[in-house]
């Protein structure tokens, strides 16, 4: 919002107010870290795949795995079924590997990490210190110390910068490190699980990711362990013309529990950038994983220039009986989103939950939803999706609920609501429902409406301005999903809901 930069406060309006307004009306994370980078040559080919594998000092089997994925990718066609349009991506006109020069020698501890990188995360509100309290969260001081710890794995372009609390987690038997480290240190686990939930050739972007993923996070929770703190990965794209391809692998062994948070931002640029991640989660008997995302990639400017193309494959495999996965996502960023966190409910009595808020404004496009594949008996799933569309944006919920013949006595409840703000945007719902046995019950409900005039009037009458009123109504509309978020995220998400809709009224 260039206009605001030149804005001069009227007499009687204090500077704090102006600053506050300026802060919330812009994409806060659009700045760039000036740091010397090292790139692989532009484009993708077997040599680049080998180069990435080499940079990560991977064993031969991993290089081979990647090369096979690349060979498959070359034969695949880019999917076009989603309700999104964007100029054709030239996959050869971008970098697939970029790392800060200072990361050439892997730092042994956080103290050795380039201060510029640490400052970057500090500025993003994710200080890479093993501190007790997450910065910027009001009221967190009053909470018991145990509940406040969050271990962070910070990924900067193609590499993991550092992971906090590793020692403390190790005591509990939890492995939390970058995936490149896991491939070197825990090859038996990686070999056993990688690609078993999202197969190498699952889809176009997942296949590309399998070939060129540079880093990401790895989590292993041993049997009967409750992870002593929340785990979090923060992804930052900084370099220009660079795609980020991260890979996350989470394994929750029998009877374990973990809550995992994911955040992401990128600088403001005129050209679009590609982000194609794969997240695989394996959940064994009686284990539970809670996976929360606040996706805030740069959405492009008000004219729709630039932004991140977010093509992501996320899937959880509830292998064991009574296992449970809960996906919660707040999607406010990205120019184009193509994302369907899915649940394979294989174990008997396993449960899948999906809570989503997708907000699109200006020229953003989001095609997102979930798949609930019920394979085991007595499995349960619940989908709550809230899509909000403003400006000239398009927002699509696309989902699948499938009850296999053997998934007796299973249950699904789906609710997708869309809210339209403005007459030039679109909201769409494309659910697939497949029921192949009669003891299961499937219910699907969807509604589309606009912000209720009566509710707005009520707020306005009580002195709120129109944007505040809309933000309040929208927050109410999203309540069910916001409540499913961990506390740290819920606060951020609530603010994001207001920010993303800035300028959409009137």
């Amino acid at each position: 919002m260039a206009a605001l930069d030149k804005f001069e406060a009227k007499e009687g309006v204090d500077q704090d107010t102006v600053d506050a307004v300026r802060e919330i009306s812009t994409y806060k994370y659009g700045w760039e870290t000036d740091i010397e980078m090292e790139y692989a040559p532009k484009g993708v080919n077997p040599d680049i795949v080998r180069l990435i594998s080499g940079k990560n000092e991977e064993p031969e089997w991993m290089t081979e795995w990647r090369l096979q994925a690349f060979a498959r990718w070359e034969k695949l066609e880019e999917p076009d079924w989603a309700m999104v349009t964007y100029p054709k991506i030239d996959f050869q006109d971008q970098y697939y590997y970029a790392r800060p020069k200072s990361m050439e020698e892997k730092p042994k501890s956080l103290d050795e990490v380039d201060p510029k990188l640490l400052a970057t995360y500090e500025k993003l509100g994710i200080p890479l210190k093993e501190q007790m309290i997450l910065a910027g969260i009001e009221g967190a001081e009053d909470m018991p110390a145990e509940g406040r710890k969050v271990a962070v794995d910070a990924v900067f372009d193609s590499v993991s910068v550092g992971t906090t609390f590793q020692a403390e987690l190790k005591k509990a038997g939890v492995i939390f490190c970058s995936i490149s480290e896991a491939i070197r240190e825990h090859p038996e686990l990686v070999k056993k699980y990688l690609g078993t939930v999202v197969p190498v050739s699952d889809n176009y972007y997942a296949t590309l990711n399998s070939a060129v993923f540079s880093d990401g996070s790895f989590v292993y929770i041993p049997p009967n362990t409750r992870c002593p703190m929340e785990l979090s990965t923060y992804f930052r794209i900084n370099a220009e013309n660079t795609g980020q391809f991260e890979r996350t692998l989470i394994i929750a062994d029998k009877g374990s529990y973990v809550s995992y948070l994911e955040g992401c931002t990128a600088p403001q640029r005129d050209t679009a950038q590609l982000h194609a991640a794969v997240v695989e989660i394996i959940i064994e008997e009686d284990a539970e994983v809670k996976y929360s995302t606040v996706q805030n990639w740069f959405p492009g400017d008000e004219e729709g220039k630039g932004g991140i193309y977010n093509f992501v494959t996320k899937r959880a495999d509830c292998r064991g009986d009574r296992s449970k996965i809960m996906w919660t996502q707040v999607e406010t960023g990205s120019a184009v989103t193509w994302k369907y966190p899915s649940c394979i409910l294989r174990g008997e009595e396993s449960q899948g939950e999906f809570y989503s808020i997708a907000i699109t404004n200006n020229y953003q496009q989001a095609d997102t939803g979930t798949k609930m594949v019920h394979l085991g008996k007595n499995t349960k799933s619940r989908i709550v999706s809230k899509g909000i569309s403003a400006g000239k944006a398009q927002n699509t919920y696309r989902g699948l609920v499938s009850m296999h013949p053997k998934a007796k006595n299973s249950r699904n409840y789906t609710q997708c609501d869309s809210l339209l703000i403005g007459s030039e945007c679109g909201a769409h719902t494309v659910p697939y429902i497949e029921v192949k046995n009669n003891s299961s019950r499937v219910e699907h409900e969807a509604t589309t409406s606009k912000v209720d005039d009566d509710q707005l009037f009520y707020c306005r009458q009580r002195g709120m301005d129109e944007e505040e009123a809309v933000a309040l109504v929208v927050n109410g509309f999203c309540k069910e999903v916001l409540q499913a978020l961990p506390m740290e995220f819920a606060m951020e998400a609530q603010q994001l809901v207001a920010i993303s809709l800035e300028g959409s009224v009137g």
Partner: protein
Amino acid sequence: MALPELKQSATEARLATLSLPDGGCLEAARAAAVSRVQTLGLPDRRDEYWKYTRPDTLVTADTPSAKVFVSGETPIFDGFDRLKIVFVDGVFDADASDDLSLDGITVERLADVSAKDIHWVKDLYGVLEARGQTPVARPLASLNTAFATDGVVIHVTGKPSKPISLIYKHGDESSDALLHHLIRVETGAEATILENGPAASRFNKVTEIDIADGGTLHHVRAQGRDHERRAATHMFTRLGAESVFKSFTLTVNGVLTRNEQVIELTGDDAVAHVAGACVGDGDFHHDDTVFITHDAVNCESRQVFKKVLRNGATGVFQGKILVKEGAQKTDGYQISQSLLLDDDSQFLAKPELEIYADDVACSHGSTSGAIDEDALFYLRSRGVPHGDATDLLTLSFLAEAVEEIEDEAIAEELVTRLEGWLARRR
């Protein structure tokens, strides 16, 4: 864009079995439809729009055979005062039909009309079908426009005293029928169209309906009898301002039925209701595909579909509400439900919304499950035998759809038929 090889060859093979009827004034429309078929290619199992229904047997060059079912039961609507128009294996039967003259309506055979040079039919034939090809292709309808061998043209100018009843008889075990009807309802006019009968071994039917401002058309159809029959039907309806279209279809039996309804609300305050009930047993496969476009202000659309399935029967519902930019104050409602009477049956649904206007209220719901055990227990505890209780609950499940029919006598007739179907399966 060139068609995939298999699709290309399947399309060519089918086209080779057909020959263009004498076109008369419809020659250009038929030729255009042929090129639509060539461009689109006939559907195959790889098409997204045919994800849940395999179109193979609707496309093959050879006609799959279907036994003619003979029963002592009186055909549906027999007791009604109506204007009968009879087709046997897709050919008009003048002897079995009534005299086609009736106040408020003109009925002509398609072949007779196409021989005349100037006729309103020329401006309608294939037009709504062609419009209905975007955004989703319906090539079987284009195939029909090109090669339809018979059909009627109905012009509703007033309020005829009785319903027009189209009866489709099936006589030949390997008949392949292509019928194309046109209906135009003038301003302020109102009529009821009834359809029934197994029609042919393979039946491809297109009806193009143009309802002028303030016109009303009721449509009730019963598809039943011969189990081995296959049918692909399309109804393309365009509604003017303040016009009303209400359609209901009952389907029992049939190894493959796909009914497509393509409705365009082009005038303000128009109302379109489509409903359907089906009961299927064994290798029954029934597909309701509905596409409703709201392109005017303050229109209402309603879709109510209920399916009862048993012994491995399959029910499909693909319904879409598209609200175009500017179609404010739209009220769109859609419900699709299935009752699975046993564990082998399946229900596959894709209820879609695509909305580009903000001041709308659209909703859809879809459910699937077995008979409600609590309700069953309630009835049993009051002395109702298990079979009766199941039938009662099944009928009440279907009732919401049947209630969409305005004419009570017709609705009652359908319920009687449903009761008979259930009783025969006890």
